[in-house]
């Protein structure tokens, strides 16, 4: 269910644009954040209702953009490692393998305790400080194995 805070946020978004529909992407993203990185079917419908769109529209949008996580089981920490070219030239595969071993999951999976999800992603615009990963909203760059250890141990 959308929280009051999310509804207030969406109300604010509506002022930014000429049409209500333009607010749909940020509104869905806010709903996902409110729900620890996961987007529920109910929230998608409620966002559609609130903005005045057919629920098909929110389904379409969520299916198109990769940052929405509908019905997926994203853990508390979503670790996304870039595997595109510049990162790959700087040993991104090695970092991914290391994380898979350390967390005992394959990329694309979530640990049993729901703490970590590991995803292999495309270029995140940080190629000059490769290899890199994003954990939730934050970028971590120039990674080495010991840096990865340190970052994970400092997570909360």
């Amino acid at each position: 269910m959308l929280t009051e805070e999310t509804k207030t946020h969406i109300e604010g978004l509506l002022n930014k644009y000429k049409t209500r529909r333009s607010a749909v992407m940020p509104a869905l993203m806010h709903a996902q954040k409110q729900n620890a990185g996961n987007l529920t079917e109910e929230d998608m419908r409620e966002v559609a209702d609130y903005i005045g769109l057919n629920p098909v529209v929110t389904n379409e949008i969520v299916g198109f953009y990769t940052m929405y996580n509908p019905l997926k089981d994203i853990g508390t920490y979503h670790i996304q490692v870039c595997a595109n070219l510049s990162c790959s030239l700087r040993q991104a595969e090695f970092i991914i393998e290391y994380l898979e071993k350390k967390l005992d999951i394959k990329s694309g999976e979530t640990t049993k305790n729901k703490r970590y999800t590991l995803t292999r992603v495309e270029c995140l615009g940080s190629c000059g400080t490769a290899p890199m990963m994003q954990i939730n909203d934050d970028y971590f760059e120039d990674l080495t194995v010991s840096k990865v250890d340190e970052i994970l141990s400092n997570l909360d």
Partner: protein
Amino acid sequence: MEKILLKNIHKEDSFKIETYLAGGGYVALKKALKERPDDIIQLVQDSNLRGRGGAGFPAGLKWSFIPKDPTMQKYLACNADEGEPGTFKDRAIIDNDPHLLIEGMIITSFAIGASSSYIYIRGEFEFGASRLEEAIAEAYEKGYLGDNILGTGFNLDMAVHRGAGAYICGEETALLDSLEGRRGQPRIKPPFPAIAGLYGKPTVINNVETLSCIPAIVEKGAKWFAAIGPEKSPGPKIFGVSGHVERPGLYELPMGTSAREIIFEHSGGMLGGKKFKALIPGGVTAPMLVEEELDTGMDFDSLAALGSMLGSGGMIVMDETTCMVRVSWIINKFFSHESCGKCTPCREGTTWLTKVLYRIEHGEGNAGDVELLDRICGNIFGRTFCPLGDGAVMALRGCMKHFRDEFVYHVEHKRCKVC
């Protein structure tokens, strides 16, 4: 060269308006607001500034296509999608010098008569989006945005719109659809956005780096700008160097600086002293260059003459240990992942290419696979709705032009020739 675009990024609190003002910020805006909008368009045309987002279209010319009718709503959209792999330049401005971009956008909006502007930023740039939002709030507070800007009667609103993970939204018409709350899929052109863009109204779309050049052009003049680098492709340019070099990073240099100088002087040469093998000069779409071509100037025309392109100026450097089949597979996997699905040659073609490249790379290639790649490329190129599919083909053909023997070796020996 005196730095123009990256001059502030290392200052303490570089992102705050006070720092920007102390460094002479918003002086250009005050100057511009005293001029006639058409004169600013002419000034930018005279400067020969060409778009830094990839295509190199003359910025002033694009602005001149906007209808002059003052009663008509017009928009400016800044393209901060920065999705082309190997590109990380706009982020440096967004994160560290947001007011440079904002000032450029205000001047541009004034020139084209826009009263509303958006910055379309890729969704992953959470930090950058909040930096921009804070900076925009500061600019409103100082009276550089909002109603009756600096008492001139000019009104402008500015807002940040965050994408949500889709490379195709960097294509300008897909960007507009995304801003309208739709799936980001390219629109048919014409009509061009200058006639029917955001919400069907005249819209200019420019890249972050393009817009960030505007304050300096207003301040120092068109002649000054046009004299930096080659006449037809002038100005300062941010080159983003990544891959196998000692010092990857951003280097602001005159357009036309040679690739060799950028790699071997500014970026400290090859990582660990290994031998150079190939350079992708402008984001993964741009066809590769080899050693003999490194003296080429990094500018739009010199690279186009070689059959490559400057693109975003994101330079990916590869050494002798790099397997070109693997590189092609990684690049194509990206394009097939990012194909928006609107047209068949791109959607099916890039997927097929990736499948064939996967099996060649993994020692499972079949006889005839290299020729198959050629045929698929031929069926994509020139037949797609937008340039994404063409880009995939340009990248692959660019690699096969120089390293076809590696593909053949992979198929025949079921393993790699170099690694």
